[in-house]
């Protein structure tokens, strides 16, 4: 087997994540997409951020 097989596995896995999410009843909704231009939109960022720490400020 070659490295290409590994690449195909990675790509299929990525597609599997999206497909599974879709099949669980959460299809992509373009109206809930991340802000097309957050700067100045006043709508704020999506908030789901790596450094997010709920409760840390208490």
């Amino acid at each position, binding site marked *: *087997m*070659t*490295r*290409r*097989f*590994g*690449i*195909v*596995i*990675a*790509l299929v*896995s*990525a597609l599997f*994540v*999206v497909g*599974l*999410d*879709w099949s*669980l009843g*959460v*299809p*992509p*909704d373009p109206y*809930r*997409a*991340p*802000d*097309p*231009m*957050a*700067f*100045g*939109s*006043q*709508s*704020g*960022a*999506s*908030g*789901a*951020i*790596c*450094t*997010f*720490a*709920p*409760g*840390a*400020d208490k």
Partner: protein
Amino acid sequence: MAQLVAIGLTAIAIQPIIAYAPSSLIGAIAPVSLSMVAAAFVFGLSMQMILGCGSGTLVNAGSGNPIALVALPLFCIGSFLGTLLVPFAIESTPHIPISLTASFGVSGSVGITLLGLFVAGLIASRFSTGSIWNKKLLIAGAVLAGLAILHVLVAGQPWGVVYGLGLWVAKGAQGLGWDPASAQFWVHPINASALSSSVLTDTTSLTSLGLIGGAALAAWQGSDSQPLKQPVAAWYFVVAALFGLLLGVSSRLAFGCNVGALFSGIASGSLHGWFWLIAGFTGSVVGVKLRDQLWLRASEAAS
């Protein structure tokens, strides 16, 4: 040096614009704590054991690297387990979020950030055997900084990796019957919203999927002439899986990986990014020594 330049350029741009539009943009500000420092140390060690950090594991997996392909699923599961442990960590030890921008103003924060990066560069040059200036890497660093700035402008938040991985597993666990209401982390409106929306509307998921796709594209040519098998014994894959799990748990407890916490944290003016740098680097030094020993044994066992 290119990494320090990339962080510095990003800091110069994003700290003022985040301060200018706080209702639209947020920085990667996270708390400093004992558990956060310990987790960053474990992350630094783990990333050496699986030959990839947060983004590095995604890139390696996208490039068809078998060790990364084994470690990545466990990395995702670990990130999810980390979300279950975060509330306990926050309640157990004091967590103090310190924003340099809030404490010293934008110009003071940018100045402190650049001074810190300069000192880090001086230390790196002192311990480096060759030149730390590489033209190609500096150009790549500048391009990376440009993309990181664009990320803040478009997504409203700095670049991160790990959150999306934990989100994917949380969604899968929910599909298997797990109740997110039982987890303090996922009850929070921001995370509950992410859980009920498509992964294609989650910023960190999009960039992580993009990393895998981009790496696959870059590695595709010539990949059919490279063997998939690694010259190590099978037990090293078990080691990689274990440290992949630790990578995920620790990245959540450290409030980000080397991208979300170190790169974006320092660039945003978060003190926790600097603590992450010191702890992660120390863990990395230990990890290099441990990896060399285990890799040698695994290579000898395979031959």
